[in-house]
């Protein structure tokens, strides 16, 4: 696992994204689209993802704008992670309540969108040049357990180092490595034929 992270640190992670802009505006402009993608991968709903990113931006600006710029990435991704978890819990409670109320099924037993209509707008996957690969990857990432998914997305996709990932996830660096190792093991199995 460490060799994977090491090789990524040497090439992939050392790109422009590792340089934190000096202004909050530039930083948010740099991460807003990736934050939306990350929220979308976790929440599987575009409106919820937009809400999560918007709230993360507001909280970062409101509470941490005086912090050094180098601390913004782990703070922002940590805020976004917690917001995503909150929305997932809220959605779970909502589904339970809907189940108690007898909603969510039509006459033939099919699922009904009780609270919100399904997100049927043309998804970004359709616009991707190689949407199939992205869809496969997204599906594999979605199937990961929560903490493994967070570790993979923050460490591998977003390129935070282990310490920043641990800070964003609110756990130790050892836990990050463990979650990441398991995540890579699962992805290796699920994406066996993936190119």
């Amino acid at each position: 696992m460490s060799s994977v992270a090491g090789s990524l640190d040497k090439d992939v992670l050392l790109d422009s994204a590792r340089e934190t802009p000096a202004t909050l505006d530039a930083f948010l402009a740099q991460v807003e689209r990736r934050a939306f993608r990350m929220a979308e991968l976790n929440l599987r709903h575009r409106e919820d993802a937009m809400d999560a990113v918007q709230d993360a931006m507001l909280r970062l600006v409101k509470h941490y704008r005086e912090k050094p710029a180098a601390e913004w990435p782990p703070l922002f991704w940590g805020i976004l992670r917690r917001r995503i978890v909150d929305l997932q819990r809220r959605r779970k409670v909502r589904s339970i309540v809907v189940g108690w109320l007898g909603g969510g099924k039509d006459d033939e037993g099919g699922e009904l969108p009780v609270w919100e209509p399904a997100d049927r707008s043309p998804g970004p996957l359709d616009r991707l040049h190689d949407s199939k690969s992205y869809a496969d990857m997204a599906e594999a990432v979605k199937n990961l357990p929560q903490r493994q998914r967070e570790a993979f997305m923050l460490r591998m996709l977003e390129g935070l180092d282990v310490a920043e990932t641990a800070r964003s996830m609110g756990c130790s660096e050892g836990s990050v490595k463990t979650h990441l190792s398991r995540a890579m093991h699962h992805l290796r199995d699920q994406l066996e034929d993936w190119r």
Partner: protein
Amino acid sequence: MTTPGNNTSDHQAVDHPDSRDALIARRARTLYREASQQLDPATAGRLRAARRQALDSINAKPRRAARWLIPTGAFAAVAFALVLVWQPMSHAPTITDSHTVSATDQSADVDNDLPPDADKTDPNLYQNLDFYGWLAANNASNNQPVNR
């Protein structure tokens, strides 16, 4: 876009789990970056608007007055209600006393003209009414100035 699968060296590296992990991570990261850049214009516009709104919140004046208006108003209403309730209770004895005093004064004045209340007067008074009548008449005659 980089397609690791088309690279011969990548095929050789896949045999090793760590190399396979590195390929997956690199490919996933590339796709993630591309997907982020290829957002539809509407979503990108909403994200820009959200960023503007977040940054504008710095310059927004804290609405302390509005924030304190509701609790202050509620406190004032409760205090006013307490004053209304407490004032009659605390002043009630005073008002009664004043009524009592004024009533006493009035009764003192009236006592000079009216007979005493039968319930409150000593029963001996009624037994010796003739004596008290004589005494009053005698006192009146004694108090008259002697001008004759």
